[in-house]
């Protein structure tokens, strides 16, 4: 009874932003009854909070963050020095933790919640290790979670593509999603990670994948079709081929023409030039193509200067990066499926390449006209840890604030990008779209304040007219309130209640039964098909979404 009471809240006088309902800065009262937004309620049975002078919006949604699973933990293991000096003590309420670029599970939940975020999408689940991702999901409080399954280098996927058997491919994707309790399909350097298993490299969409006589283009195409046929809530989420290399924007433009997809951390795929010497930004061209194609969305992958850890399923990329820097490097090839690597990296203002990378993320966000199709991310922790989102918001909203950094970094950022010429300053409404309504819509998960919706929202102590970057950053760094399913979980930037979020996955169905085929293809796994499956009981607060 008492607990239900806590989920009854009246929020008075807040200035509300709810883009999915076309509410743009209106003063409104919100009523939360038993965790859901309602028209009206008995205020005597609720906690009443006056939000005069504060803004209210749906809580944050991170569409791409490597915050849980085998690779992330491989990074934590590799880097005790990332934890040492970044420890957080237990309190009477909260668990302890550590980590700057790779916070531990509980700390991850707390840090997101204090920024007003309550949903994060882990975009790189290796199927065979999905149980590990779920184990960490279970240990990550405060957040709702979803995971995307790595299928771009899955041998069975490639085989079906080679056999031109789309129907079986659909069934295989369906089987894998259901077995691993994941939410959608991710492709990382399709074909390229498989090829690297033979020390071979794939740099274009038309290169041949060794052993199978298929191209990345065919793999991507098969996966796009699979996502559509299975009616997945999220389209193919892709880390493009040729990522991180000068001149790769051409691969990006070519990939976009293939159909609906979400191109993640587009910053790493918007490079011009032929080498690191004439490296430059082609963000404008990439953004223009995004503007032309309604079925394409991107997220930024914004760089913030400083030390971080890079983690990706693009194993050859990590190997190369470690060869460039001489830093330690861990790798984890997953049989028949995927790869992954980790290496520390420091983005320096004094580096021309890093300065251009920094500018590109902002250019993308400012050149893409429709905020519903470009989302704020740092590809956590690859371009920066997620704790920097408030700073990035401030850079986007205040030209003076970002120009200050521009003035401090290598002149290439001035000379080889369009950032200096960009005067656009995003409005608060646009930020709300980029950080919650937009990514939620693309994931087909709710992030609105409609009547009947679960009350997941964030309140920030900021005036809608605020234009000063410093103040914007400060306000978004510590939410005045974060409310999750009606519970006040953060107050004044401090976590006041620990709750366990949910994990979403999709239930899909297909026409063709490939059970026999699955067993046959499992011959080359070292575990039994039965033990491959993650039972739904394993997942704390699991929510199955039927795509029927």
């Amino acid at each position: 009874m008492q607990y239900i009471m806590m989920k009854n809240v009246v929020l008075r006088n807040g200035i509300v932003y709810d883009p999915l309902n076309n509410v743009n800065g209106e003063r409104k009262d919100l009523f939360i009854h038993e965790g859901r937004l309602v028209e009206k309620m008995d205020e005597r049975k609720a906690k009443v909070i006056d939000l005069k002078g504060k803004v209210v919006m749906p809580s944050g949604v991170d569409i791409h963050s490597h915050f849980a699973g085998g690779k992330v933990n491989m990074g934590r293991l590799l880097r005790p020095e990332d934890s040492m000096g970044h420890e957080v003590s237990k309190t009477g309420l909260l668990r302890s933790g550590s980590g700057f670029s790779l916070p531990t599970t509980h700390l991850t939940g707390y840090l997101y919640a204090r920024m007003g975020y309550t949903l994060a999408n882990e975009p790189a689940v290796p199927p065979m290790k999905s149980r590990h991702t779920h184990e960490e999901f279970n240990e990550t409080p405060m957040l709702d979670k979803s995971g995307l399954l790595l299928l771009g280098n899955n041998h069975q996927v490639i085989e079906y593509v080679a056999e031109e058997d789309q129907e079986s491919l659909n069934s295989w994707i369906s089987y894998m999603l259901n077995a691993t309790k994941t939410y959608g399909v991710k492709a990382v350097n399709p074909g390229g990670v498989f090829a690297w298993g033979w020390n071979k490299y794939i740099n274009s969409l038309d290169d041949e994948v060794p052993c199978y006589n298929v191209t990345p283009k065919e793999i991507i195409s098969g996966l796009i079709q699979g996502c559509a046929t299975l009616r997945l809530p999220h389209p193919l989420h892709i880390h493009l081929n040729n990522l991180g290399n000068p001149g790769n924007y051409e691969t990006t433009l070519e990939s976009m023409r293939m159909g609906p997809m979400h191109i993640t951390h587009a910053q790493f795929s918007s490079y011009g030039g032929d080498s690191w010497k004439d490296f430059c930004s082609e963000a404008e061209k990439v953004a223009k193509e995004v503007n032309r194609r309604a079925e394409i969305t991107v997220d930024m992958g914004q760089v913030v200067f400083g030390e971080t850890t890079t983690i990706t399923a693009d194993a050859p990329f990590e190997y190369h990066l470690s060869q460039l820097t001489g830093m330690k490097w861990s790798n984890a090839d997953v049989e028949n499926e995927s790869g992954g690597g980790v290496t520390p990296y420091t983005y320096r203002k004094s580096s021309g390449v890093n300065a251009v990378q920094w500018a590109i993320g902002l250019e993308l966000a400012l050149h893409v006209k429709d905020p519903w199709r470009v989302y704020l991310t740092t590809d956590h922790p690859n371009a920066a840890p997620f704790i920097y989102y408030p700073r990035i918001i401030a850079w986007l909203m205040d030209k003076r604030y970002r120009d200050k950094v521009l003035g401090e970094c290598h002149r290439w950022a001035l000379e080889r990008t369009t950032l200096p010429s960009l005067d656009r300053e995003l409005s608060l409404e646009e930020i709300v779209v980029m950080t919650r309504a937009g990514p939620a819509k693309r994931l087909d998960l709710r992030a609105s304040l409609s009547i009947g919706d679960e009350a997941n929202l964030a309140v920030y102590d900021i005036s809608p007219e605020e234009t000063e970057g410093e103040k914007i950053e400060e306000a978004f760094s510590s939410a005045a309130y974060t409310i999750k399913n009606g519970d006040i979980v953060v107050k004044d930037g401090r976590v006041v209640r620990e709750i366990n979020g949910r994990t979403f996955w999709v239930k899909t169905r297909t026409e063709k039964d490939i059970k026999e085929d699955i067993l046959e293809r499992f011959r080359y796994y070292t575990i039994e098909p039965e033990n491959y499956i993650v039972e739904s009981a394993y997942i704390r607060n699991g929510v199955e979404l039927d795509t029927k």
Partner: protein
Amino acid sequence: MKHRNVVCCVCGAVCDDIEVGLVGGEIKVKNACALGRARFQELTNEDRIKEPLVGGVHVDWDQALDKAAKILKNAEHPLIFIGSVTSTETMRQGIRIAEYLGGVVDSHPTLCEGPMIMGIQEAGMPSSTLGEVRNRADLVVFWGANPLQSHLRHLSRYSLFPEGRFRKGGRRDRKLVVVDPRKTKTAEIADLHVQVDPNKDYELMSAVMAILKGNDVGGDVAGVGRETIYELADLMKNCEFGAVFIGLGLASSLGKYRNLERLMKLVRDLNRFTRFVIIPNLGHGNVSGFIQAMTSASGYPFGVDYSRGYPRYNPGEYTTVDLLRRGEVDAMLIVAADLVAHMPRDVVRFMKGIPIVSVNVSQCPTALFSDVVLPGVVAGMESSGTIYRLDNVPLPLKKFVEPPFSFTESDEDTLRQLFDRLRC
């Protein structure tokens, strides 16, 4: 009753194809190795502990839990040691207790595999799952590892003999190299046995690394002839996909974690020429699981001190043997491990003087040493959970029989109940 695809948690290879039949009071096991078969007989062990003990006297469950909680609450620097033949769920509970108490939590890596982990932290570990080796490898190296005695089905199930997706010929498609000072059983079937002098692995690796970088090493190194060293370097460089498995031989010989650091760097360098991976043959069942659970909870893999309210890590400082040897522990909770049997004599003497609570399946020296003994539940037979294979592949431990008592469902449950006592 027959149970298929049962997961075995004796060693790090975690076979998941075991068949267990329960016929009357008898247990029939298929597919498991000798070590695994013995483990499944645990269910009918005559020395099974079925009742809680305080000071050697049978008491009821609540009394035992109260006493255990009292001991741990009163301690200023308790050490929680979680063995590896249990689920990660149990481990997480143990970690939680250590954090709550402000104690230290540690597990088997501190005794055996720690140097492998510390090697990773210095160099990084280019690795893969076992199936990747089975499917792709044409060169398999065992360095200071002897799977025919430590991981009995390693060669037949994963690394040498089985057909792989791209190695249809199995053994015929692979070369086997063993680097070991001894003529081990594995060395006997090797295509090349590099008989390095004891404690000289580091020198041999250094020579190979220098050769890979275009340098010449004058003569013999570490008791290995110049020609053999070049042969080894050539084999490694020119294979299509190589894998080196490392064993405790390397982790426990002179140089300890530096050996692993260097070998991981050697493997890193080999990736300039070909694809090469390195996989530690972690010895105990769920060692990997402990490392994963500990790291995701604290940022550190083992030997974590919570005395200041936040996690700290520094092997040699906060690790079990070092703490006990320096007398920096004033109470212990030992779960699913016969720690006393594996400790040096001076440490055992110190342990005698401090209160110990243990969770044990059957009688053992640790149980005899304990002030409070809580009956253990056999993981993977009487309780479910998660286990990680030595290559970090997570697998489900599945319950198929009831424990012989009703006061607890699993070691995880026991620790949760204990945690609740500590909090009130």
